């Protein structure tokens, strides 16, 4: 094993896959030097700041035999390309009867905790989950980012990688040898018997300390990271809730029509899982407000270990 940052893990995934397949190309408003040095400016394009344009260009290149990797930078900027994402990328394979493949990976950083204020602190993945035709990953560690991103790049469908913007310097271990992580498989980080906590993205790192505290109190917490939002591994979540009888969901996005609502429903609409539940589902989410700038305000809006701890205690009571 070796230690790399979240940022490095993402770069390694892209480098390795670009090395492997000369049909992979990279489009972003700032071309990473590591990529241009290795693959040249033909395959690694610095684009104008025109997200709609280069998102559509990636789609057309994908439909013409290439495997583009697009970095929108902050998810904020993906909204500039919304027509292409919603009307074209997500529907094109289906609308044309499956006659061509569109393998594209969109990388983007999600927000929160960086004092970046409303436009640059968003976690809008549930908006995209509602569109049929897009897969999406939400990596919470360097290990997950590298393994999932490599699978995303190899995938013959559009995949969005929602990465944690305030985690790029976060360090973690990855194997020396090559590895990938499959899309659609949740990760049980910690086995437990009293309560299931499903955490999304960077919230894992606030959930782990809460679980440690509860462990010392004799409460056994099972932590699940879905890793992939579409397709969602509902089987693993349901099996866990059937075992523990309790479900807490933690997300740095707002609760309204969120991924958390989808996860809660996956449990409660399933008869066997519902029958095993001993307490109502508890969601610990960001408040539904545009994210404010000042530290006292921003910190109040997002979940943290204390809020997660309190929420878990609520379902145990």
């Amino acid at each position, binding site marked *: 094993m070796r230690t790399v940052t979240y940022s490095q893990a993402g770069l390694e995934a892209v480098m390795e896959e670009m090395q492997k397949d000369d049909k992979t190309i990279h489009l972003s408003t700032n071309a990473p030097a590591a990529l241009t040095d290795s693959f040249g400016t033909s395959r690694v394009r610095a684009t104008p700041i025109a997200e709609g*344009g280069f998102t559509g260009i990636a789609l057309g290149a994908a439909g013409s*035999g290439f495997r583009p990797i697009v970095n929108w930078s902050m998810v904020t900027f993906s909204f500039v390309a919304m027509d292409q994402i919603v009307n074209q990328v997500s529907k094109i394979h*289906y609308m044309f009867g499956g006659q061509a493949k569109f393998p594209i990976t969109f990388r983007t950083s999600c927000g929160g905790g960086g004092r970046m204020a409303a436009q640059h602190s968003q976690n809008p993945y549930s908006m995209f989950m509602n569109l049929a035709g897009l897969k999406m990953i939400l990596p919470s560690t360097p290990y997950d980012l590298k393994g999932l991103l490599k699978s995303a790049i190899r995938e013959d469908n559009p995949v969005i990688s929602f990465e944690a913007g305030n985690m790029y310097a976060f360090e973690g271990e990855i194997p020396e040898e090559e590895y990938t992580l499959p899309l659609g498989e949740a990760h049980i980080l910690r086995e437990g018997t009293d309560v299931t906590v499903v955490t999304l993205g960077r919230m894992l790192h606030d959930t782990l300390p809460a679980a440690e505290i509860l462990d010392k109190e004799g409460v056994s917490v099972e932590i699940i990271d879905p890793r992939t939002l579409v397709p969602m591994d509902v089987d693993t979540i349901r099996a866990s809730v059937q075992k523990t009888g309790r479900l807490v969901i933690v997300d740095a996005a707002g609760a309204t029509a969120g991924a958390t609502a989808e996860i809660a429903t996956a449990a409660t609409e399933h008869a066997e899982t519902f029958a095993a539940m001993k307490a109502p589902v508890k969601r610990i989410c960001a408040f539904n407000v545009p994210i404010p700038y000042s530290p006292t305000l921003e910190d109040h809006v997002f979940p943290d270990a204390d809020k997660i701890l309190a929420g878990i205690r609520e379902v145990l009571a």
Partner: protein
Amino acid sequence: MALSAEKQLEMLRTMQTIRRFEERASEDYIGGAIYGVVHCYIGEEAVATGICSALNIDDRIISTHRGHGHCIAKGADLNRMMAELYGRATGYCKGKGGSMHIADFSIGMLGANGIVAGGIPIVTGAGLAAQLEGKGQVAVSFFGDGASNAGPFHESINIASAWKLPMIYVCENNLWSADTEAKGTLALEDIAARAAGYGIPGVIVDGNDVLAVNEVAEAAIARARAGEGPSLIECKTYRQRTHTERKEAIDNRPAEQVAAWMERDPIKLFAADLIEREVMTEEDWKKMEEEIAQEVLDAVKFAEESPFPDPEEALVDVFAE
């Protein structure tokens, strides 16, 4: 005249095939066998034909919501097109697309598109692919005057010129953006003038003269194949019918404007020209029209005899397996 007689007759055949196919599509839409919406290209056939007859099968194009003409000109199969309009399982998109979403990737036709300007970035990506492949292929974006006012046009053409992509941007200026006169929504008389803002050639051509369109297409395509970058071609043309087919279509365009353009029908003009130049006889033309009418009837028969998709097919193709 550089084009062979055979080539010219083929162009006339393509134009007339588009015309006849759409006349029937309109009829069947009104009759109820075709659903949703049908946008006819009638009156603009010289544009798709003039451009596509200068392309190779491995060159790629993208179309608009008014897409039948581009499909046929690029060589799409009438049976599968009509079956798609009829919503049948044998259609190009297995009944999932309809008139606004016909594509045939095997002949480089990357699809009709229901979003004005939506296809322009996509086909520019095909231009990027062509440049990376380095085999001399080009890509053509068809769009209307309305799309030239939209962001994707400007973003795409800027990127294509900055990267010298082998692109041909073909503006079909039919003077009307749906029911709004184009001149009220842009200050320029000529959309081709916009090319100057991107440092590329902008050419104006009579979009109802198929040979003229073909000639400017050849020049732009040669430039693109030579790695010199994109061109913008503005084809001045006119849609003979209303924006969409309707049972009782209300046309708010000035009657004298419509009448003047009907006089300049691209098929009548070209057929008369070919007869005058003795490339064909009246009789040849009549025979060709009959053959085409039969092909369209065959396509209708194919569509009518094809099954509707199984309802469960609705759940297939969300993702590639």
